[in-house]
Each structure stands twice: as C-alpha cells, then as structure tokens.
C-alpha cells in the first residue's frame, strides 16, 4: 500500500504543479469575503446530531484568500447497532479548519487542513485542490489530493489503540456545452488503511454477539456525471448520477434531480430528490451463519435503499452597504431508508425516517 500510494501520490502532485504553472487561458476569481453562521441538525434511526458551525473568509491582498471554519456537533446516539455496546450515548465533537485559496496564473489553488476531536477519536486531514479554466473558459479542469491520519481511542484509555490513514485523489472536468447547458464528470480513487470501524460495534455470529472484524484495507473508486441547464431567466434544472464501489464488494448508485426557481428579486426556491441504492459488503451479515475471517453487522454496510426529497430556500435579506449582502438560507431534507438485511429487535426488516435541517445567515462582501 505504501509503495502504491507513493507512486500515485507522485503523479497527482506532478499534475497539480503542471496545472499551476501552465499559461493562463481564462480568468479565475478568488471567492468572495464571507462570514456565515449555520445551525445544523440530523435526527434519524435513534441518532440525533446538531450544533452550530461558523465560517470566516477574507482576502489577503489581490491573490490570496484565507478561510477558517469551526464545527460543533452534539451527538446523542441510540442507533440500533450501537445500543448495548460501550459506545457513549452522548458526546460532543469539535472540528477546526483553516485554508487558503491562491490565484496562481489564473489557476485557483486551494489548501486546507482540519482536525477534529471527540472523546474517543482524533482526526487530522490535509488537502490540495487546483481548478483551472481552459479553452476560453469553456472547460474547467479540477484536481484534488487529500490525506488523513486518525487516532482511535477507547474510553478509559488515554493512549490511542490504533490508527487509520486515508488517501483521496480526484480528477474532474466541467464543460460548457451550450449557452444554457454545462456538464461535469468526476472520478475519484480512495484508499484507507488501519482500524476502519468502531472498537465498540458488535457483530452477531450464530446469534451470539462478538466484536466485529473488518479488513484493515479498503480501496475504492467512484465516478460521477452531472448536468445543469438554464430553463429561462428564472428557472434552472440539474441532475447527477454517481457509481461507487470498493474492495469490500460494496456497490452504490446515487441519483439526484432538482429544480430551482427564482421568485422575484430576493427569493429563490429549490426542490430536489435523491435516490440511493446500496448492495452491501461481502462480510456483512445480520446474523452470520458461521465464524468468518471478517464479519460486521454495521448497517452502514448493509443492503438498503433510500429516497429523500428536499427543499431549499434562499432569501436576500438586506444590503448593509453597496458591496455587501445578507442572505438567509434554509434547507430541509426528509428521507426514508429501508434495509433488506438489517433487522430490528423484533426480527423485522429495519426502516427509519430521518430529518435533516440547515439554517444559516451569511454576509458576503
């Protein structure tokens, strides 16, 4: 794994350097200065996670922009696959992130680092992304590279019991097809190594609970295509499809469709629908028939499908100065998930409804 990641990592960094140093073909802009506060909430399957998050982004000179983010998640977990284990029922997770966007010869280079802390898990990540418009602005090429290194703890033990490392590499293209239509295509390679599950989660083998046993490596690929179209001066539509699969034999399809409508000068509304279908990992069992090298009853790895309609609303709330605007944004997603091979305490196929909510206020200047 180390040799493979070194080889592919070298290729990615080289491609990034070439994109940065290439002759400029079209203008690229720094993101606008922005201050935002958001409340987020997820409630479903006995798990409730909510909290505030903040973003501050400011330009430093003509070619550099700095951003900082802070997330807090209050986690109350009564998930059916963790109930009865030693996993804490309530905990708080905090994440801090800093980043820089740099204009380099009309390419936009984004550097970001983040760390997250909760009582039994510490995550650290670093990423580099490059975007450059070519062919007169009709095509945008995007490259991404990210690494993560996490420490896994067990409550009561101050020293990490294991680690997990992650590698992500992504290539994407956005292509203008006409004055009203553009499409995107993305491919991503993923590689994880180490303790990739929860030290608390139990599997079920012949009706008897025992600690889950996951492979210590996971290699995946994902492909996505999408398109957005202008349907006039007040309406737009979008759609996307993603295929993801990995070495655990998990395969998933995601389809998203949506419509955006402008209502007057200040309001816009969006309606979307997300369909998701997953074929579970090869070592996933609701009740394993016999002892196997790897076994898990994590419903995240089960076979299931979900449907999730969503509504998003944006309001231009005010203009404090000529160069600044205040926007208020709300989003609500209601999802229904049905499992083929995960059962509840009564032995029936498990299903749940979940609500996702986001409320934010932002000033852009």
């Amino acid at each position, binding site marked *: 794994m180390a040799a493979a990641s070194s080889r592919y990592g070298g290729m990615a960094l080289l491609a990034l350097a070439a994109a940065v140093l*290439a002759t400029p073909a079209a203008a690229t802009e720094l993101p606008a200065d922005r201050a935002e506060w958001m409340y987020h909430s997820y409630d479903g399957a006995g798990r409730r996670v909510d909290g505030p998050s903040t973003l501050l982004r400011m330009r430093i000179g003509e070619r550099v922009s700095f951003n900082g983010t802070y997330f807090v998640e209050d986690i109350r977990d009564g998930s059916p696959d963790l109930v009865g284990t030693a996993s804490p029922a309530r905990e708080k997770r905090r994440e801090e992130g800093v980043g820089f966007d740099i204009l380099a010869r009309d390419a936009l280079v984004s550097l970001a680092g983040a760390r997250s802390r909760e009582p039994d898990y510490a995550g650290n990540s670093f990423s580099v992304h490059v975007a450059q418009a070519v062919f007169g602005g009709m095509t945008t090429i995007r490259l991404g590279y990210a690494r993560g290194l996490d420490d896994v703890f067990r409550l009561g033990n101050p020293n990490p019991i294991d680690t997990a490392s992650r590698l992500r590499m992504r290539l994407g293209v956005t292509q203008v097809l006409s004055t009203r239509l553009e499409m995107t295509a993305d491919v991503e390679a993923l590689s994880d190594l180490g303790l990739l599950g929860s030290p608390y989660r139990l599997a079920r083998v012949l009706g008897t609970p025992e600690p889950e046993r996951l492979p210590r490596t996971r290699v995946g690929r994902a492909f996505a295509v999408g398109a957005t179209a202008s349907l006039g001066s007040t309406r737009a539509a979008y759609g996307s499809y993603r295929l993801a699969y990995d070495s655990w034999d998990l395969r998933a399809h995601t389809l998203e469709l949506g419509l955006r409508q402008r209502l007057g000068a200040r309001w816009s509304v969006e309606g979307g629908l997300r369909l998701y279908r997953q074929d579970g990992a090869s070592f996933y069992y609701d009740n394993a028939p016999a002892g196997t090298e790897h076994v898990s009853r994590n419903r995240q790895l089960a076979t299931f499908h979900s449907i999730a309609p969503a509504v998003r609303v944006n309001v231009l709330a005010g203009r404090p100065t000529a160069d600044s605007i205040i926007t208020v944004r709300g989003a609500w997603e209601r999802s229904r998930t049905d499992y083929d091979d995960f059962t509840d305490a009564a032995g029936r196929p498990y299903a749940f409804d979940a609500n996702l909510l986001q409320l934010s206020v932002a000033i852009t200047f």
Partner: protein
Amino acid sequence: MTRATLRIARVLTAGALSALAGCAVPTWVKPYEQERLADPLVRPLCEPLAERHLAAVRQATEGARGAVVSAGGGCGRGQ
C-alpha cells in the same frame, strides 16, 4: 510498468496539461455568451458549511464514498 515507462508517462502528463491550458482551441460558446450559465440558479455559490454537513451525514449513514457531487454544482466546481 517499469520505472522508465513511469517516468516518461509523468513527463508526458505534465506536458499535456501545460499545453492544454494555453492551447488555442475554437470555442463554440464565447465567454460573453455564458451569461446565463453564470446565473446563481445554474451555478450556485459554494456553501462550504452546508456541503460539509451533508457530506458528514452521508458518510455516517451510507457506505459509498467518493466523487460527491453537490446538488447541481456548488463547491465541487472548484469555487
């Protein structure tokens, strides 16, 4: 793949990317004709907090990973 072949592939990849960026290719949609595509309805602004939250929820509830496409654009476009 031998080391020499890999080295050649790296140089060719870097050269191709460098050449493409400055390549004069006929464009059938001029920059001044992309006004409709620049509309926030078509190219929504990147909402990093919202997209980060969505990504965290998906990661915690689903097994699929990678190539996440935010609903109709947003941060994934390189903004």
